[in-house]
């Protein structure tokens, strides 16, 4: 099957799904109170855009700040932990354990200290995204072949040259993989914080729509966030491939 056929089948399946969904709502197979038809969702999308877009911007802003924090700290910590053997052996069990603990447990406490605003969401995003980034980068740094460095040193490379020409290309894939995962986790952290204790942003908006039983608007909001996340992740992946060629 060619690439075009695959895309054709994908489009056809999605269109079929939307049609069945519309039919199900239309002929009363599902309760319209809970499952709105695609047509209703589309009109809700237009209707709520004015209210939803600023909220989406708010959420994205928080996610970007939290993401920036998590990536800066996470890449630094990952490089340190991955390159120092003793530090790796001592710190790694803690990183893995903290990664494994459901962060939702700490969210009430963060919200208690930092309130309903920006800082709770940003901190929660950073907390969600930090550990996966550290794990990825530390693992990637550890896997750098030491003979590469030995060879470069013996050929008279300076520290700076080794860093730029040997370490950077070797570590870059895991840094980028960490950055891609971190983005999803940062969005997750912000939305969760907004749903739990927010008075702004997309998470708060969606939670309110659910409580008010506004299913079409809720579906529309869910679709907007989903499409945005998929677009961001796919473009990071694209960037990843282009950088792969540069290597």
């Amino acid at each position, binding site marked *: *099957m060619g690439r075009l056929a695959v895309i054709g089948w994908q489009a056809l399946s999605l269109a079929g799904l939307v049609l069945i969904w519309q039919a199900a709502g239309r002929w009363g197979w599902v309760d319209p109170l809970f499952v709105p038809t695609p047509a209703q969702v589309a009109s809700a999308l237009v209707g709520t855009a004015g209210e939803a877009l600023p909220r989406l911007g708010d959420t994205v802003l928080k996610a970007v700040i939290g993401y920036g924090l998590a990536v800066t700290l996470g890449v630094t910590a990952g490089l340190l932990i991955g390159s120092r053997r003793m530090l790796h052996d001592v710190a790694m069990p803690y990183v893995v354990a903290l990664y494994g603990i459901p962060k939702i447990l700490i969210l009430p406490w963060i919200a208690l200290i930092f309130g309903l605003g920006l800082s709770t969401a940003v901190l929660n995003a950073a907390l969600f995204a930090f550990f996966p980034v550290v794990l990825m980068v530390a693992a990637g740094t550890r896997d750098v072949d030491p003979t590469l460095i030995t060879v470069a040193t013996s050929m008279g490379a300076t520290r700076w040259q080794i860093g730029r020409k040997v370490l950077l290309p070797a570590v870059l894939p895991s840094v980028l993989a960490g950055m891609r995962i971190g983005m999803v986790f940062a969005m997750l952290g912000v939305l969760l914080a907004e749903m739990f204790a927010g008075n702004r942003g997309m998470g708060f908006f969606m939670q309110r729509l659910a409580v008010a039983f506004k299913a079409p608007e809720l579906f529309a909001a869910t679709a907007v966030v989903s499409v945005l996340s998929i677009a961001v992740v796919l473009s990071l992946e694209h960037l990843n491939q282009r950088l792969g060629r540069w290597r």
Partner: protein
Amino acid sequence: MKVFLWRAAVLVAAILIWEAAAAPLNPILYIRPSSLPGAFVRMWRVPELPPLSEHLWLTLREILVAFGLAIAAGLWLGFLLGLRRSIGRIYEPLLAALYAIPSVVWYPSLMLFFGLGPASKIAFGFLLGFFPIVLAVLAGIRQVPAPLVTVAVSMGARPAAVFRKVMLPAMASTMVGGLRAGLALSVVGVLVGEVLGARSGLGYVINYAYGLLMTAEYGVLVVLVAGAVLAIDGAGALLEARVRRWAG
């Protein structure tokens, strides 16, 4: 040995620093580690908190149902997409795209469908646990060396025997890894659901204690739940290591 001493030292230092830093601050906001044992004893007797064992039991059942459903659906879809290559090529990218969505966006819709009861938590735990299992089955099938299957078939092995003797050993460790990740996410899903909106379950109790500003009790619950989650995951890691040895 030296490493273990260092690890213990880091833990002790972290607790001591926390204790020292929190001492001059408001004890309701900044929970001191030394206040936890007292709260642990108090916690079982205070009438303000709902009886813990009931809520614990409910949460465990929610997790088990969610994880069971995630295993069933994950294995089914994983093998369907992995063994029928043409279907897999069409639907795998769609699945991967769904995986890129921050999962919590589904929760308000699930709450709308299933209400505030256990059903919405089970649905969310299922949804979170399902993806790693599907992806692990797909990755596992890709790891099966095609020549081995060809040889086994040409020597007259039946499909069931090929599956059991050739495919399963080759994909076992990846699949167990996926199941372990799925369990962890099912636990997270149920807990997130309970914290975001519920009338029962551990997450509800945690939220409740926090709502009453019984932060020391809240701290105890967090430490206990986190410890239980790590213990379950540790057991999963041991199982994974065993399977890896069996599969060679």
